[in-house]
Every structure is written in structure tokens, then in C-alpha cells.
């Protein structure tokens, strides 16, 4: 004999595995949701690995990797639109966005401390804006999804870069008032008001809205939260992280080993992978190296776009912190350049390496990635002011960055144009290898016309393969194009 039962008796919830409908109940759940959203930034194809390869397609870097598809990726040769660096990035960025959308959609309904509630939603909006920032400038025309999908049939409209910018601005403007100026030591690393202001200013910079950007930089300076740290090196190691110069860092610790792509769902990876690929051969895979012009720029004033360079009273100390080369006398992973028998005609990235504390790299570096640091903010403010023809206001900001590393201040009469050129050069040297340069050459319009490409070619022959109107954007992975007939591939792929 069988008896009937209520149908919903069959829908039992597992007490060991909360579901979306019985999670999101209290303050603790809300905080965990936000941590999960931050954790999205650690994913394989976000700041753990792919971001760096995507950002290093710029003219400061090149790849001689024996992994030919990878080297070709940095040379703007990507016959396979689904090559994993870019296609995994598409996956992982949207996974991060999914987590932020859950927080933004669910946390307002929780009964909890109102100030903290607002702050948590604002943090999620910051992370969402940061994710869309990279998506907008790497992929261009991306689906704008702002809510957790009801089910697998959900679809989002594909929008232009400009429309994504509007959304980033909306998110950041609403986040800024609700974010704190700073956190206690045990909470450092979370998004601050200054971080959101700086990211918003970066969006305005990309839009070439100099006045709007400059106003925000002014507010950041007035907040009195940020300064340059005395030791330039403190921006690139795991000592002295989240310091006064740090505006926003993605947090990593080297104590947990990598488990693979997108694995932040179980025994999560909390470590950083960049140094394993961006260093010298032997201790690292040496997949990405700096271009020679950049090494020379620290000593050679004949680099074509550096009319602002002055004579130095000694070698720019940023050179040997940024780049391993035959003339760098330091010890790397226990040996000198000559002891390693590296090719003296080659140069390798040094920033973010653990070469002072380890004998080689593995997949678990603990060094935080500095997404925005105050030197970048100062130089962006200088650029915005110079663009606004306020050359005399721009100059001291550049000199503040220079004098921190004992360089002689720039002096003399600058025009708007020569000031800008000096700022561009200073950015190249100060932020070398940090990945900001992709967004810089994008903002400077160098990838928009043949003259710009020709200039980039003089520094990086990879740009011989650059196709105007095509290579500026990465291809959208084919899978989504097949499933969503309204999604269109970027031009030329």
C-alpha cells in the first residue's frame, strides 16, 4: 500500500549545505557574502594569473614563451578565440560579478546594522565596478548583468564600453558615501572610500573627463589617508602590505597552495601566481619580459617620448627594483645575474617576485597585487591637471614621485605637451610592470590610429601584428555566442 504525501515534503533542505533561500539571513551571512565577492578577485583568470597576461600585451612587455599560443597572445595573434587566458577571464570575471550581484540583491533585505549593511553593499558595488572596468577595457562590448539570474534561461543585454562606464560610475557614486575612509588593522584590505574615488577617477580618466577625475583626486589627497611610502620596494613585497601608499590591493597569502582554475569554491586558493611567470628563467617560467627600451629609459634620455627627462645624480633606483638585467648587481634567489648565467642581452621582470626570500617561485606567492597605489593617483592627477593646462600644478606632483626615490626634481618651463610627455615617461618608469600601461596607452589613444600603432611598434615589434579596430579588444568566447544569439562577437574575430 502506498500513501500520498505533500509534494513539498520531497523538497528538503540539507542542513550541511545552505541554499540561497535559507542563507542571506543575518549580518554574518552578509559579511561572508562580501568576502566571497572579494575572493572572486583572486580567481585564476582575474588577478591570480590571466589579468597580468592581458595587461602585459602593452608595449612595455613581450613574451618569448615556448608555449607558443601564449606568446602569440601577447603578439596579438589569437587564431583561437577561446584561448584560455581570455576565455577563462570571461568566465571568472562574470563569476565575481555574480557574487557581487547576490550581495547587492540580497543584503538590503537582511535585518542588521544599517551602517554596516550600506557599507557591505557599497563594497560589493566597488568590486562589481572593478570587474566591469577590466571587462570594459579588455573585451569592450560585454553583457551587463546586474542581478543574480533567476535560472539558466536568464539573459543580459550586450552593451558598449560607454554604457558599461555609465554603470561603473553609477555603482561607484553610490558606493563612495557608504564606504569608510579606513579600516582597523584586522580589516585592512577592504575597499575604502578612497579606493572607490580612485577607481571612479580612473573611469573618468579613460573617458578623458579630466576635470571630473581631478576633482576626485583632490578629494583623495584631502582625505589625508594616503602618502608615498619612503621605500619604493615596499609596494611590491609581502612585507608592509596595505600601507599608506596602498589605495586598493587584492589580498593574497602564500600559505595555501594552488588548486587550479576557478577553484575558489572548496579548498580555495588564497595565493598569487604572477611571479611564477613574470620573472627570470630557472626560478620562474619567464613567460613575460620587459622590453629593452624600458630598461634603457632609466638611464637613457634619448627614448623618443621622453623630452622631460633630466640628468640624474645617480641611477634611478626604480630600475633595479623593477628589472633584472646584467647590470643589476643584486642577488636574485640566492645568486647574481652572472652566477645564474642568464643571457646578458635579456632582461626580466623583478617586481612582485619573491627573489629576496625564496630560491625559486611556485604557484603560491603571498604578495598582494596593488591595483591602485598612491603614486599612480598622484601621476594621474598630474596628467589630468596638465590636460587642463594647469602645468604648474602638475609639476610638483611628478616631482613628489621622483623625490621619493631620490631623483632630482624636474625643473624648467614646461608646455602642456612637454609636461604630458614627462608624465607619460614618469608613469612608464614608476609603474613599470604593474600592468597599468595597457590602460595608459588605451587612454592616450595610441591604439586608435595608425600613427599611434607606428609609435608603439618602435618600442614593441609585437604591434606589427596589431590590427586597428580589432586587436584593441579581446574576442568573446564562442560558447556564449552560441547560446545567446543576441550576443555579437567583437569586430574582426
Amino acid at each position, binding site marked *: 500500500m502506498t500513501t500520498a504525501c505533500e509534494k513539498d515534503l520531497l523538497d528538503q533542505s540539507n542542513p550541511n*549545505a*545552505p*541554499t*540561497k533561500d535559507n*542563507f542571506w539571513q543575518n549580518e554574518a*551571512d552578509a559579511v*561572508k557574502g562580501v*568576502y*566571497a*565577492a572579494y*575572493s572572486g578577485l*583572486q580567481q585564476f583568470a582575474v588577478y591570480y594569473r590571466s589579468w597580468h597576461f592581458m595587461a602585459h600585451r602593452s608595449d612595455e612587455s613581450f613574451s618569448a614563451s*615556448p608555449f*607558443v*599560443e601564449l606568446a*602569440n597572445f601577447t*603578439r596579438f*595573434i589569437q*587564431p*583561437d*578565440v577561446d584561448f584560455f587566458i581570455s576565455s577563462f577571464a*570571461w568566465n571568472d570575471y562574470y563569476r565575481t560579478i*555574480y557574487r557581487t*550581484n*547576490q550581495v547587492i540583491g540580497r543584503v538590503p533585505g537582511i535585518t542588521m546594522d544599517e551602517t554596516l549593511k550600506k557599507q557591505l553593499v557599497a563594497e560589493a558595488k566597488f568590486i562589481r565596478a572593478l570587474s566591469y572596468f577590466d571587462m570594459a577595457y579588455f573585451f569592450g562590448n*560585454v*553583457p551587463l*548583468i546586474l542581478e*543574480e*539570474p533567476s*535560472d*539558466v*534561461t536568464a539573459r*543580459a543585454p550586450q552593451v558598449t564600453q560607454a554604457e558599461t562606464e555609465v554603470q561603473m560610475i553609477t555603482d561607484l557614486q553610490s558606493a563612495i558615501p557608504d564606504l569608510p575612509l579606513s579600516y582597523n*588593522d*584586522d*580589516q*585592512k*584590505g*577592504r575597499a575604502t572610500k578612497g579606493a572607490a574615488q580612485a577607481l571612479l577617477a580612473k573611469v573618468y580618466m579613460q573617458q578623458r573627463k579630466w576635470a571630473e577625475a581631478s576633482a576626485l583626486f583632490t578629494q583623495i589627497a584631502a582625505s589625508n589617508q594616503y602618502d608615498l611610502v619612503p621605500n619604493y620596494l615596499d609596494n611590491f613585497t*609581502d612585507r608592509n*602590505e*596595505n600601507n599608506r601608499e596602498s589605495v586598493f590591493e587584492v*589580498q593574497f*597569502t602564500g*600559505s595555501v597552495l594552488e588548486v587550479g582554475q576557478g577553484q575558489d*569554491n*572548496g579548498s580555495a586558493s*588564497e595565493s598569487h601566481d604572477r611571479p611564477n611567470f613574470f620573472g627570470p628563467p630557472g626560478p620562474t617560467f619567464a613567460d613575460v619580459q620587459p622590453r629593452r627600451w624600458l630598461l634603457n629609459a632609466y638611464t637613457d634620455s634619448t627614448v623618443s617620448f621622453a623630452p622631460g627627462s633630466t640628468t640624474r645624480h645617480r641611477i634611478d633606483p626604480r630600475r633595479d627594483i623593477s628589472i633584472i638585467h646584467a647590470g643589476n648587481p643584486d642577488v636574485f634567489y640566492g645568486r647574481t645575474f652572472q652566477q645564474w648565467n642568464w643571457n646578458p642581452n635579456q632582461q626580466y621582470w623583478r617586481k612582485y617576485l619573491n627573489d629576496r626570500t625564496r630560491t625559486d617561485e611556485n604557484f603560491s606567492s603571498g604578495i598582494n597585487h596593488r591595483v591602485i597605489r598612491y603614486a599612480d593617483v598622484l601621476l594621474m592627477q598630474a596628467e589630468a591637471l596638465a590636460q587642463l593646462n594647469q602645468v604648474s600644478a602638475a609639476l610638483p606632483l611628478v616631482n613628489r614621485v621622483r623625490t621619493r626615490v631620490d631623483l632630482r626634481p624636474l625643473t624648467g618651463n614646461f608646455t602642456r605637451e612637454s609636461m604630458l610627455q614627462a608624465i607619460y615617461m614618469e608613469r612608464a618608469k614608476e609603474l613599470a610592470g604593474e600592468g597599468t600601461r595597457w590602460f595608459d596607452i588605451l587612454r592616450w589613444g595610441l591604439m586608435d590610429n595608425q600613427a599611434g600603432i607606428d609609435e608603439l611598434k618602435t618600442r614593441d*615589434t609585437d604591434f*606589427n601584428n596589431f590590427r586597428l579596430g580589432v586587436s584593441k579588444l579581446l574576442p568573446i568566447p*564562442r*560558447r*556564449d555566442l*552560441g*547560446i545567446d*544569439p543576441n550576443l555579437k*562577437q567583437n569586430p*574582426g*574575430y
Partner: protein
Amino acid sequence: MNNLKLRASYGANGNDAVAGAAGGSYLTQAIVGQNVNYVIGTGQNIVNGQSQLALPSPDIKWEERYTTNVGLDLGAWDDRITLSTDYYISKTRNALAPVQVLTYLGHFGATLFQNAGDIENRGFELALGYHENKSAFTYGADFTLTTVKNEVTSLPVVGQVLEGGELLTRSEVGRSLGEFYLIPFDGIFQSADEVANYRNSAGTVIQPFASAGDVRYRDTNDDGRINNSDAVYSGKSIPNLLMGLNLNAAFKGFDLSVFFNSVSGNKIYNQARRDLESYAGPNNYNADVEPWSPENPSTSTPRLLQGGGSGDLGLAAASNSLFNTTRWLEDGSYIRLRNIQLGYTLPTSVTSKVPSLGSIRVYVTGRNVFTATDYTGFDPEITGTGFYSRGVDISSYPNVRSFTGGVQVNF
């Protein structure tokens, strides 16, 4: 004629066999991930984060299969000749399939079980036999033939295309499940003139970076360049004709049986050959590679050009090593001598001398003795790599050829 039967049948059954871990597991609920952790604070402490990571399959149900059969059975000449024919239509409704999920929804994992659509198989089956077993020399032959026309008849979203198998195949309404979708390989450029003259209708040189010895692809959309938009449907992975022939004979204690089967009309993507011959990186090549050279103007294998060069050389190498092209697609048809067995049963006059001994038969068997195929991979009888990509050969372990001998003793 001693038997004539007209048959018709209709049946419906259900199937809940989802593939996957633990014999077919899937998320029934929107589970929240428990260890989505982050690092916070000056001490760089790990803090626990939680979030929903994967979309569930909350309402999936059994797929239903409706089979309609019309057939004719015929026996003649004391059942020496038997014939059985069928026309069948098998409709699978709400097929349970691992459907690829839009990545931008943020779903962790590539696929999700869904009742994804309707699939139809229809075709003709024939079994023709001739058996002579009324004399001392008995012999017989059975021939079977099956035609298959597989078609996806509906998908959840109009216009939807399901990509599969490293994006080598597509499934869409009106097509067979998992058809190959590739850029057509169009031979090898034999001269610089051929490169210069290979233009689209607007006069654009289609592969300007190429030299003699490089692969030529067809610019199917006539846009003057080769890319994924040039991919076209290039063949089915499901065969449209399957045949079997079983022959047997016996005389005075000797028995012989032979079984052939064949498959035709399907294509196989030879991934092993792609890996060995695409020269994409500094990997192993096959020993007998015969690249194009002026002295050896191959029409199928390009010049030996390792990837990674700069400028035109780099572009040509990348182009030559494209993976989603018909260069790696081969005809999957084959005829195989699947089984041959020769046996001899000792006469009862010998075996009856031993009490309680029934019979003794000695035999030798050969399996997979012989295969006629144009397929260059290990084995045209492949298992494929999944629901949408059964025609992708990742060099799975081939069927072995074996010869066995045995003695069968009955007591």
C-alpha cells in the same frame, strides 16, 4: 512461404540516466558554497566567505522516449529464408542533457543538466537470413542493415546553438546531434602566385602572410580573411548506415563462424594527428612527417614552420596550426572482421569412453582481425568525448586484436 507477419508497435519509456559523477549527480538546489575564502587584515588572515556559485537543475524530470515501429516478418522455404524489416521512429522528448550554460551568468562549471530539447532518430532496419540446417552440412548467413537519421527537433531557446567538444561541433534544430562545425581546409599553397591570387570577391588577398607551403582555407563568408566565422557544418559524427554480416557453417564436428560489421557516413576528428602534425609548439612530431617543400610539393601537409616566429612567419605558423578546421577531419567509415571462430567437437565415439564426460570442443578465435578503413587514427570505432562530441577521437585506447584458443569441456 511458411510465416508472414505484419507488425506495428508503439511504446513509451522513461530514462533518468544522467551522466556524471556518482553515476549521475546534479545539483537539485541552489547550494551556497562554504569555502569561498579571502584574506584580510595586516595579519593576512584567511576569512570565510560564502556565496552561491553554481546554478541548480531544480526541476528536471525523466526524458521520455516514444518509439513507433512498423515491420514485416517473413519466413519462407521452411524458414530457410527469414526476413525482418522495420521502419522506426524514435522520438526523445525532453532529452536529459548536460547543457552548456551561458558563462556570463556566473555559473561555476560549464554545463548543467536540463531537459534540453527533442531528438528524433528514424530509419530502416533489415535482417535477412538464410539458414540450411537440415543436412549434415549446415550453413547460414545473417545480414543486418540499419539506417539512422538523427535530428535535433527542438531546443529550449529558438535559435540556440549548443557548442560541444572543444567547440568543434554544434547542435541545432534541423541538424544531427553534434555535427562538426569547422573551417574548410582547402589544400596547400604551391606558389607565391597562388597566395597573391587567392582573393575574395572584393579583391582582398585572403591570406597575405602566407607563402608557398602554407595551408589554404576557404573563406566561406567572403570577408577576405580566415577566422571562426568561416566555420561551416562539415559532417556528422553519427553514422547513417550500420551493417553486419554473420556467416556460419558446420560439418561433422567442425564449426566456423565469421562476423563482419561496418559503419559508414560519419566523420571523425583525429585529435592525435592534430597534436602531432600541427607544429603548434616545440612538441613531438610524428617520425614519418612529410612536410611540404619545393622538392616535395605536398597537397595535404604544410611546410615545417614552428609557431612563435614574429611577423608573417608567426601568423603563417598560427594559421597552419589552426585546430578547428576540416584538415583534421576524416572519414570514419570502416568494415571490420570483428570475430572469427573455428571449432572442432570431438566425436561422441571418443568422448563417451570416459564416464560422465559430455563433450569436448577445441576452438580458436580471432577478434578484430582485420579492419578496412581510411581513418588514420588508432581505431575508427571510438567512444568520443561526450554527449555532443562523440566523433572527437582523443586517442582513446583502441580495440585490441586478439587471438585465443580454448578447450570447452562439458561434464
